[in-house]
């Protein structure tokens, strides 16, 4: 179970601090797959990465992260080493291209385990079981990355990242470079891993909300570094309370909707600069229902079980 309280992370630049993540507070239960959605610059990548690799130019400003009752020292890169891979694991974007081309897969895994003080031979039986699960032959361990297809590499990376049964898995845009059928297989694999208890909580960072519709239990929507809304997936799509969420969902084309029948609307304007962001709710310049209270930051408050919103209008 993951509890994040008031996590604030800024980027240091010569012009000052870019307020990329402001006061994030939320919880992910065991077995929950939470999608982290938002547009570019919303802070989802900052949030995902600060839970495991908070390094310059990211600067820890404040907040707590508690995993399974234990506080994670995210501000200390060295102390976090103990938690990385074992308790918190990350599948970065383009991970499948990050496999060392000069190492056979098996050797790479062995080196990785040894660096954590673990024995490859002890882990091997479980590793083989996992490979079976994702329909990869054991021969993969004797191959070089170049011999594998994109989908096979992605599945390999997923097995390796979850080998030690981390409590928290962060998947950062893992489907962006894949073709459609592999995308589906990889998404279903994430669900499978959760169902079998290999992973407790999962965060899926993506800009493709339709994937979240398919496999996420809940979705956390972010805007310009602030949390907008977190709710079960169905609720986000049927009954969102934050104006941004509603407009965002409303702007998504879907099969079944043609412009002649129903013209979708976008959100005019663009996200604010985070160097000197506006006071209060950062969406208010583009929000159709903003009023004077919005110059004060709305708290991220639970309005019904499992459904939190940061909007004065929603309270």
């Amino acid at each position, binding site marked *: 179970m993951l509890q994040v309280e008031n996590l604030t992370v800024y980027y*240091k630049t*010569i012009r000052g601090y870019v307020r990329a993540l402001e006061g994030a507070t939320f919880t992910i239960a065991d077995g929950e797959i939470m999608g982290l959605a938002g547009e570019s610059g919303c802070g989802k990548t900052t949030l995902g990465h600060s839970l495991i690799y908070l390094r310059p*130019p990211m600067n820890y400003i404040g907040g707590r992260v508690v995993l399974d009752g234990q506080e994670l020292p995210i501000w200390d890169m060295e102390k976090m080493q103990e938690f990385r891979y074992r308790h918190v694991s990350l599948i970065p974007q383009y991970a499948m291209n990050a496999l060392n081309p000069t190492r056979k897969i098996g050797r790479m895994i062995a080196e990785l385990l040894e660096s954590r003080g673990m024995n490859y031979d002890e882990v091997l039986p479980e590793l083989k079981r996992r490979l079976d699960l994702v329909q990869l032959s054991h021969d993969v361990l004797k191959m070089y990355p170049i011999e594998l297809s994109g989908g096979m590499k992605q599945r390999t990376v997923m097995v390796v990242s979850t080998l030690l049964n981390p409590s928290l898995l962060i998947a950062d845009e893992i489907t962006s470079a894949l073709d459609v059928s592999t995308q589906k297989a990889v998404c279903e694999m994430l669900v499978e891993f959760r169902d079998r208890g290999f992973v407790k909580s999962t965060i899926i960072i993506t800009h493709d909300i339709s994937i979240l519709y398919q496999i996420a239990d809940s979705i956390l929507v972010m805007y310009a570094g602030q949390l907008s809304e977190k709710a079960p997936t169905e609720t986000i799509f049927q009954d969102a309370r934050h104006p941004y969420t509603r407009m965002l969902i409303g702007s998504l084309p879907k099969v079944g909707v043609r412009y002649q029948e129903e013209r979708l609307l976008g959100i005019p304007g663009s996200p604010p600069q985070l160097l000197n962001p506006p006071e209060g709710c950062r969406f208010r310049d583009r929000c159709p229902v903003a009023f004077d209270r919005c110059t004060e930051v709305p708290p991220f408050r639970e309005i019904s079980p499992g459904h939190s919103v940061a909007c004065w209008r929603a309270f």
Partner: protein
Amino acid sequence: MAQEQPKKVRSEFIYFAWRNVKLRIGVSVLLAFVLFSIIGPFLAKYDPLEYVGPAGAPPSREYWFGTTTFGQDVFSQFAHGTRSTLIVGLLGGSLGTLIGILVGLISGYRGGLLDEFLNMITNIILIIPTLAVLIIIAAYLSVRGILTESVFIGLTAWPWAARAIRAQTFSLRVREFVDLARMTGRSSLRIVLTEIAPNMMSYLLLVFILQFGGAVLNAATLDFIGLGPTKGMSLGLIMNNAVLWAALQLGMWWWLLPSGAAIAAIVGALYITNVGLDEIFNPKLREM
């Protein structure tokens, strides 16, 4: 709002330019030498080749850098020599850069047979031991001037620049803004001049600086082995003479040292400037 951003971009550039210690050191040293090369000869009291003083005298108030075995004023030689060394560096470096740009841009943008042909020429000249060729050519010409020397150096130093510029052109050629220019019906020549070359400006500047430094070194080498200009003075020539007449063995360090140090300083300053500029132009290298 519209005017703010461009100023910020420019001032950010200048901010990093000023902050960059390497650039400051390099440019300062270079400017000092350039200044010296302009006013130096006026400060020189004597004609560099005339026998004016006591033979082999150490530095004194009369002869600031002492005298040579023949009683020539080393400082006067040094002042004139610096000027001519810098001129050769400038001319030779410019020629090398120019040829490199022409060949690089043309073969990089056109590709095909023309590229193959120019590539072949580039490789041939690259492989030829240029010093050996220069020695042979220089030995055949009985009268050589600064211009001749600069041309030699320019004609043999361009291949690496052409290669590098060709590679840059290749990568720029497939960028989408080039496609856009093609779709606007622009001719290839115009695209190369107005789209590609401007994007390489910083790189071309770096190439020129390296060519300058290389030309100075090449000239010094040629002069040192006696194949420099038949008349006139240069830093390499001073060193040549000094060694020829056993300056070190005879303890006449003042004859050899200034020129050698000056060449090292000029070339060193150029290279440091190059590194500094690279840091400025490449945002990823900037220290933050």
